[in-house]
């Protein structure tokens, strides 16, 4: 496949910015090549497809709602009842698209419709608190959990990879506005763009 063009082209400049008198509180990395598929299971086929999907992806069972399951090359996210998503490398994505028949459910590829940002650092939570209303404490939003929420009215998907590491999936056409917001709000902490 050709190189994918970044939604942040001309905006994302590598280096340290903001309050650089101290170690950067947050690092940003854009992951350009990834697949993001939204998988919908029709009501009647949920149970049968659940085991089929788990077998296909090599996992014991699908994650609970709001949770995610690490796969070999990506993650399976359980967004809501009957609504899953795959985030990761391209190869399993192809398998999924073929495996689910129209009678069982459907797969909508949305990897190009999103911009994937990885936020990491001691101040990552503090930064996200400036835009996300939901409770981001470890007890309420644990490692591996996923939520659909919004930053300033723009819908995003947030995945907690580690205590201080998050993946943020932003609509491509809004990516520049969200990026500007992130960097403006991260400036007091100091941030690094990798």
């Amino acid at each position, binding site marked *: 496949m050709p190189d994918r063009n970044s939604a942040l082209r001309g905006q994302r400049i590598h280096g340290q910015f903001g309050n650089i008198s101290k170690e950067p509180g947050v690092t940003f990395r854009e992951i350009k090549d990834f697949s993001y598929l939204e998988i919908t299971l029709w009501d009647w086929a949920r149970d049968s497809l659940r085991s089929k999907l788990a077998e296909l992806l090599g996992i014991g069972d699908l994650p609970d709602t709001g949770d995610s399951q690490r796969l070999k090359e990506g993650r399976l996210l359980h967004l809501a009842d009957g609504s899953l998503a795959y985030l990761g490398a391209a190869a399993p994505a192809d398998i999924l698209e073929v495996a689910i028949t129209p009678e069982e459910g459907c797969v909508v590829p949305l990897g*190009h419709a999103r911009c994937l940002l990885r936020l990491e650092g001691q101040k990552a939570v503090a930064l996200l608190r400036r835009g996300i209303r939901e409770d981001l404490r470890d007890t309420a939003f644990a490692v591996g959990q996923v939520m659909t929420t919004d930053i300033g009215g723009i819908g995003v998907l947030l995945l907690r990879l580690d205590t201080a590491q998050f993946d943020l999936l932003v609509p491509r056409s809004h990516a520049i506005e969200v990026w500007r917001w992130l960097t403006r709000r991260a400036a007091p902490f100091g941030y690094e763009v990798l």
Partner: protein
Amino acid sequence: MARIWPIKFRTLGGEISPDYRINGGAIDRGRPVPFRFNGRGYRGFAGDTLASALLAQGVEVPENVSLLRAGEKPAATLTAAQELFDDLTARRRTNGHFRRFLPGYAPSVETGSDAEVEHVYDQADCLIVGSGPTGLATALQRAEAGLDVIVVERDFEFGGSLLYDDQWIDGRAPGDWRRAVLDRLLVMPKVRLLNRTTALLREGETLVHAEERPQQHLTMRDPHLPDLRLRHIQARETVIAAGIDDQIFPFENNRLHGIFKLEYALSLVNRHAVLPGHRLALYVGHTDGYRLAASLLARGLRPVAIIDARAEVPDVCHRFARQAGIPLYPHHRVIRAQGCRRVRRVVIGKAGQDPVNRDIHLDCDSLVQSAGVIPRTVPELLEEGSVLSVTGRTRGETLPHLRRGPLFEAQTRAAAFHRTILGWRLAAAYPIKGEKVRAASHREALAAWTGVAMSDLSHLGKIDLQGPDALALLERAFGGWASLKSGRMRPFLLTEDGGGALASVLGWRLAPHHFMLTMAAGSLATVRTRLERLVAAEEVAPRLKMTEVTDEWGGVALMGPKAEALLAGSLPMSVMSENLPPMAFRDFSQDDLPVRLARISLSAGAGFEIYTRAGYADILWNLVLEKGKAQGLTLAGTVAREILRIAAGRPGEREINGRTTAADLGLAPPDRLEGRHKSRLQLIGLKSVSHEVEGKPAPPLSVGMTLYEGDGTEPTGPGIGEITSACYSPAHDREIALALLSDGRARVGSLIRAATADGRKVIDVKVQPPRVLPRKEIGHA
């Protein structure tokens, strides 16, 4: 009436400096702080407030007057309780009058200013408002129980009354107790202590909106910090321990300078080491009010009198006054304060119905009062706008909903002139070397008619619809989908139940159970809402998934007679008519680039739409641009596309407005048109027949112009129709327009007139059919 005039009392004795500064306090005398107020230089100490530092030098500012920080645009509004910092420059507000705020409400930055405001959403198990003895003790207790605790304190120092009170706690002096508790809280990871933060409003049981001022103690503004931080704190438990507020007595002239509330005066004396006045009278309604007198006495200073409003003054108060040698006036009230700007005397009298009613005149330069105390609270947010200056800020930050398509960068490189249309940053035109946008658009439109032009389509709204029940939904919403074969497209009109046209969409059948709808960006919400309502009306959840995929695809339109030649020379598959008939599309790969190619033109005769995944859109753009050089490919912006649309007679969002039907728009069969909707407004085309007059160009037609009969009568009144789209057509070298005209079809060929609302501009126009799609193209589909 008997008078005692003048009654002389000894003024405050003891160690009083020529100014109002006294010994002690919590200020750091080793750190003098220079500052300027109203153009004059002053000096205070670290730990002072602006008010205390000025008062120490005999300049009084009311407790809650707002001041402007000079040298800043826009000037920030401070309160007199602003902590002092090096080189603070402040002045009174230029409007000459003081703004008083209720304590705790004073917004530190003017509402509506350009101040940078940051929102923070905090969560905690326990929120404590106030860091006095109750607040700190509660915080420590909750933190030791393992809870997440947030303490907000509006002052720059934690401690509240501990900073000026002298009541010992747990056998320790208040200052020692405060330091010990704070030391413990500061090392607890689940405790957040937020100073310079005022709790503004409570919303429901669990939400408190608070305002933090991170910049207003800094000599140099930190460019990374916001002026104001609005914290929206969600907590299971909220403890209001914000201290007490003194109630004041009603008396004449009680707003003169030199009249203070008790708690504020205590803070001035014990924390900031500043005397409210040299001859201080105390006016109280409770025993606790005597604390100030005790504090002063402890420093060797004595008030001129204590006026106690109570009928029954406890013995302890009598004893205290007697031992201190302070004249006590039990069951008295202050009738009025006298003085020019500052109080110089108070007139007191016996309270109640005293038969021997005589006024007493007390010389004093300050009066400290407290009728009683009430605990400070955080007001409830009852309704939007109830406290205008703060409720607008409780809603959180909204980012600009400014969308950029995947070709935005490529267009910028091509020197596009961008405009914001329906929330999208779109290339309006591609001017060449000083060319005006209008001229560029005319050039681009001509290229689409005579050569080949490429235009960005990425912003078009796109909905993906999949599932066994998708077809049934589309049939219900539009009708006519069942006959659409896979690999084909067809234009559809979404109508409401009454027949009014809501939106025009292009339907794509990707597979038997997989569809895509493309539409103008402004129609996306309408179509989506309509389809969602139909889904919601189903009794059983239908097996379908509707997803907005606008951002997933980037695409271009190739328009013009040379478009086919361009593609034939650059794509691996033939796009000749037999392989790709009109209104059909194919998916294929070009150098690993996934491409969806459709033969369609709704605007400029022959044409194609080419889509790829958004991340590859610029590759597609560059590919077509490169291959198009030989054909003289021209880039066309939205203005040129609008010219093409109007010339083609295609109804847009102003024509498809919910009031017109398919028949009105010429999209229904002629028999229905002639029958049921004869008298309705019908879509027609117009061309100006006004010619240049005395070298001046013919006046342009414009949207909103009213249409009148061409019979020579005065063009007034409601008219017979309205222009809905208008432009200059370089192909026709005249103004053209689309309009909704009463009985429009029957008027084709006739002359009518278009007039502006003020009637100043009247233009002769000829009615013509709106040019619709060549029938053979639609027919093939």
